[in-house]
């Protein structure tokens, strides 16, 4: 071995320094071009976000006034607001969160604390992940078949159920992830004190993971607050004031959808204002969720 290294101090063919330099230049050039393109891609990505926000601000900020939040939707040209849409959205989103969160929490707990690597656990995890990305319009169709057709009409409740189905997998994912971050020694310490498993989970694990769980709930709220497609076939929308969950109920996304497609100038302005409100709300919730997670770490 020493003989071979002695005969050829550098392995490989003999090198032509000029060819090597040219090769080096070419490699450096390729690298620089690609790095530049990557920077352009990132700037382009940011540009999309900026453009959307700027459009919303330019077209929506002018329409913001007290009237938007105090008046109900009215026929075009008569100074209507979005009050019933905002209230309808608040009611449906909060009820959906109240309904979906406990279920999602329990499923996430099951996956992290009970299922382990069992076959059943893996199937549940897989199905929950598929539901997380499943087209939301199909959830709407499903609830239409399940609750609207048999019970004789569109209702706020149907909208609530559709949104709750979307909440569940979001909460499942974050709950499981956060519970898995808790060190096992903590669990062993609690069990070692003689506490039953359910107390270990409820009083110690949930408490340790609470910021993560809150993050999940906030993200779920942000997700369903902007959902339009599942509400098209469930709560339908309502141009009059109504807080009766047994009847069709107005919501902000649906109102924006119908107003944006209308030919009336003032309705379109109102749609932009609604769009600005909902986007700021959703992005605000997302930023808040991140802040909650970071504050506890």
């Amino acid at each position: 071995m020493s003989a071979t290294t002695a005969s050829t101090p550098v392995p490989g063919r003999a090198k032509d320094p000029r060819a090597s330099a040219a090769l080096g230049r070419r490699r450096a050039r390729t690298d620089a071009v690609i790095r530049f393109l990557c920077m352009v891609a990132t700037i382009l990505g940011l540009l999309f976000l900026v453009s959307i926000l700027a459009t919303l601000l330019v077209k929506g900020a002018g329409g913001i006034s007290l009237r938007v939040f105090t008046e109900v939707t009215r026929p075009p040209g008569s100074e209507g607001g979005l009050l019933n849409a905002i209230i309808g959205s608040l009611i449906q989103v909060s009820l959906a969160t109240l309904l979906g969160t406990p279920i999602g929490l329990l499923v996430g707990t099951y996956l992290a604390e009970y299922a382990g690597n069992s076959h059943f656990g893996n199937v549940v995890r897989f199905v929950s992940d598929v539901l997380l990305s499943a087209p939301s319009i199909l959830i709407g169709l499903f609830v239409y078949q399940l609750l609207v057709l048999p019970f004789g009409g569109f209702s706020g409740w149907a909208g609530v159920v559709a949104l709750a189905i979307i909440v569940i997998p979001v909460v499942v994912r974050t709950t499981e992830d956060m519970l898995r971050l808790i060190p096992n020694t903590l669990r062993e310490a609690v069990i070692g004190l003689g506490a039953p498993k359910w107390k270990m989970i409820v009083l110690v694990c949930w408490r340790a993971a609470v910021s993560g769980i809150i993050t999940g709930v906030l993200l779920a709220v942000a997700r369903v607050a902007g959902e339009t497609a599942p509400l098209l076939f469930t709560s339908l929308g309502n141009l009059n004031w109504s807080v009766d969950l047994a009847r069709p109920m107005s919501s902000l996304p649906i109102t924006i959808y119908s107003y944006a497609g209308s030919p009336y100038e003032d309705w379109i302005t109102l749609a932009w204002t609604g769009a600005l409100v909902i986007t700021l709300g959703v992005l605000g919730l997302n930023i808040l969720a991140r802040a909650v997670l970071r504050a506890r770490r």
Partner: protein
Amino acid sequence: MSHSAVAEGVHVAPPRPVTRRGGGTGDAVFALLCRASAMLVLVLLGAIIIELLLGGLPAFRAFGAAFLTSTEWDPVQDVYGAGVSIYGTILTAVLALLMAVPLAFGIAFFLTELAPDWMRGPVGTAIELLAAVPSIIFGMWGFFVIVPMMATTIQPAIIDTLGELPVIGDLFQGPPFGTGLFTAALILAIMVLPFIAATMRDVFLQVPGVFKESAYGLGATRWEVMRRVVLPYTRVSVVGGIMLGLGRALGETMAVTFVIGNANRITASVFGPGNTIASIVALEFGESAAGSLKLSSLLALGFLLFVISFVVLALSRWLLRSRLKG
């Protein structure tokens, strides 16, 4: 105290084994609750599939297998086919990926290897926030900002250049409406971009530092490290991330509904109007009476969309499994 008792050699009775009072029932009830909730998720999936299938059954019965390929959608004659919307769904989703994947790769490469440390957090968050913008906002933005831009500048320019070429020219022909399949694909690309970019970034970050360092130590440039070390190491997960984006693009509804042009025919040009499964369901649902064959056809379309997205998402999840375990 017990310690001193032991020291004095006094016999101490071993503590009686404590029977856990309440723990047994409490544990059983809690475990049952958790298990029942987990069961509910499975039931939910089953119920979705069954309800959509049952709802679509009259349409499947009336038109048979031809429903999948028929391009007819005629409410007057009460004849419906899924051909146009399946074509539109797949074409827009694939076009969207063609546009989104290179961009997403660039962003992920930039965020993991190129950007200075202080920039990675804020830029990464901004890209993730793009994923949080509601679908309907993308629709409005697309309709009021992108569509006029397409109609006045981008489409005429492409029609005059690429549209003049032989063979592929037909793909880029037709009047520049602004709306249409291509615009829908562009909006979809922007919507799935953050999902793909975030997944790619996460898997790139999982490449062990020593691998990259040894390549850098040999004098490799950053692109060579990405190309020869990071990409081969993360190949499977990267494809999984792309499939995740595909799954999202297939079922996206509101944004597409705004810009696709809503026409039930297949045109040769990508600038032509069209339909996707999700957009036709959203647009035609209001005009379908309960119990009609049209409503059943829409539910049948929903069932098909569910099957397609389920397969794509399952594949994505399977490809990403190593990342999920790690």
